[in-house]
């Protein structure tokens, strides 16, 4: 039952990523060229609505609809190095592959099979972070 619930949310997410064109390499390229408002409109309006949703969930201490437990939205650890350095690495990859970790799966479903190379490499990249974690500035 829960599996079906999360699977359905995933389907909705996948459809949204494809239809919004946020999963398109072209849109990401265009975004970094500042040649269109589209991606900024998507992120901006998602943020605007997301901030209201997050605020209301916290203010009214809404419980999870699944198990009645309080909804916890954990704060990110403080610091800046990992966020800036990690963010820059992520940006390198985002600009080259035009794919972030959500849309990757959407693109696979849409039938662009070479994305498996991106997904495999991203998994390897994640593994390498685990390997080097203790030696990296955080």
């Amino acid at each position: 039952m829960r599996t079906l619930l999360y699977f359905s949310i995933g389907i909705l997410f996948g459809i949204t990523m494809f239809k919004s064109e946020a999963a398109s390499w072209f849109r990401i390229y265009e975004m970094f060229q500042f040649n269109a408002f589209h991606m900024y409109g998507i992120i901006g309006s998602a943020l605007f609505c997301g901030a209201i949703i997050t605020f209301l969930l916290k203010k009214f201490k809404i419980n999870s609809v699944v198990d009645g437990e309080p909804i916890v939205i954990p704060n990110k650890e403080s610091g800046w190095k990992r966020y800036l350095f990690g963010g820059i690495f992520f940006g390198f990859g985002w600009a080259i592959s035009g794919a972030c970790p959500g849309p990757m799966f959407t693109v696979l479903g849409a039938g662009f099979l070479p994305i498996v190379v991106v997904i495999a490499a991203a998994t390897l990249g994640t593994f390498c972070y685990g390997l080097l974690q203790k030696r990296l500035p955080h």
Partner: protein
Amino acid sequence: MIEFLLQPWPWYFSGPMIAFVLFLLLWTGKSFGMSSNLRTLCAAMGAGKNLSFFQFDWKAQRWNLVVAAGAVLGGFIAANFLSTSTAVAISPATILQLNEMGILDAGQSYMPEKLFSLNAFGAVKSIFLLSLGGFFVGFGARYAGGCTSGHAISGLSNFQLPSLIAVIGFFVGGLIVNHFILPILL
């Protein structure tokens, strides 16, 4: 309504839909963070044997893999049943620029053929670019503790300074590669 959904979705519909997905995940007691799946995949493949970073109860993260599997089906449905055309109408300036760089299907398709058609599997350069891009995405997302969904949407919606720093990083890295490296690599 159906006619509207079959067209590419405008930003003012897409953004709130993403926020709705965020809401559904928070409301069901989870969080919106897709790159965590890559860590879960590593742990599921046994990376926890030697590395403490992958020693966690990955089965508790199974729900997120299910979301990712749903996203695959969602992409299939959207591409095959919810689109009259999948051409992405990027700006004429971008089309011109990409044409000059040898990406001739800009404005006519969803993904550049050079990187995402089956022929890409036989092209060393394409495989190199896809691997390099993917590697940085996976490495950077975990180093930064999140990706576009975890930081740019969830974190910023919760007014988290670390997420703002991460998003600034995304753009610093992305702008450098887009403007100075891609013209050479493509």
